[in-house]
């Protein structure tokens, strides 16, 4: 047996929980990486045309916004295992090369174990937002908004007008 992902950056390793590192077979590297703290200056994004800034962490919208700087858009066709794998194993690699906001349409991402899938996805995205200090913009409906309870900001579009939800 050999690791499919042979190398993880220290930053990437910091994202993982111990259990995840164990299952990936990278526990020693993970323990070493956890001794280091990497601090970034937060990237602040904004909705184009509006003077409203999007802080790092998870931010909710119910529409497709124009974001500046241009975000990494998670491929809409990814579902289930591929979606989780992309969030946890691919996005941190992309961000390791260039930090950018992330935008993800989270509707209909799971065909099984739906609730645990969403909880896990939000947990991964939350960690990504914190470690890389980038805004993560989650697009979803009202049901998605209710699954997670620590949104850094919520902006909704109703009849072509934007509302900031406090």
């Amino acid at each position, binding site marked *: 047996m050999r690791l499919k992902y042979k190398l993880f950056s220290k930053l990437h390793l910091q994202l993982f929980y111990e259990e*995840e590192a164990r299952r990936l077979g990278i526990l020693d590297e993970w323990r070493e990486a956890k001794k280091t703290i990497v601090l970034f200056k937060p990237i602040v994004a904004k909705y184009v045309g509006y003077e409203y800034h999007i802080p790092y962490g998870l931010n909710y919208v119910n529409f497709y916004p124009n974001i500046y700087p241009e975000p990494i858009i998670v491929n809409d066709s990814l579902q289930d295992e591929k979606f989780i794998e992309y969030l946890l194993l691919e996005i941190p690699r992309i961000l390791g090369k260039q930090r950018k906001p992330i935008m993800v349409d989270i509707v209909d991402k799971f065909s099984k174990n739906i609730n645990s899938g969403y909880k896990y996805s939000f947990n991964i995205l939350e960690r990504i937002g914190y470690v890389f200090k980038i805004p993560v913009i989650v697009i979803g409906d009202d049901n998605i908004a209710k699954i997670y309870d*620590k949104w850094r900001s919520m902006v909704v579009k109703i009849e072509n007008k934007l509302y900031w939800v406090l």
Partner: protein
Amino acid sequence: MNIIKLLGYIERIGDRGISPTRISRNTRYVEKVINILRKYDLIEIHGNRYRYIYLNERRLKLYNLLRQVELILSEGGEIKLEKISDKKFISKKEYAPEILIQSPSFLRENPWLTILSKRGRE
């Protein structure tokens, strides 16, 4: 201090923070403003020699309200705020530490963790 002036300083600090010299070159006046903003628990100050005034979550709420006022004024119409969540903003201090230190309880029995064992090795 006049409430409009106070809101003006909140607007000027913005959601990214500013250095005190952006408030005024008059250091006495800056101290006065800082003391008032502190009195209302609206700011955090970082650094000693080179200070930087930051938002706190309470001030962020006010700042967002100001943005809405601006929106209402610019559109000239009445806006009803749709409230889809009663959740509060959480502070950066609350937000930061727990995420990476301890895995949440829902993860222990989470079926999606098993894919990592499969994907980690071929």
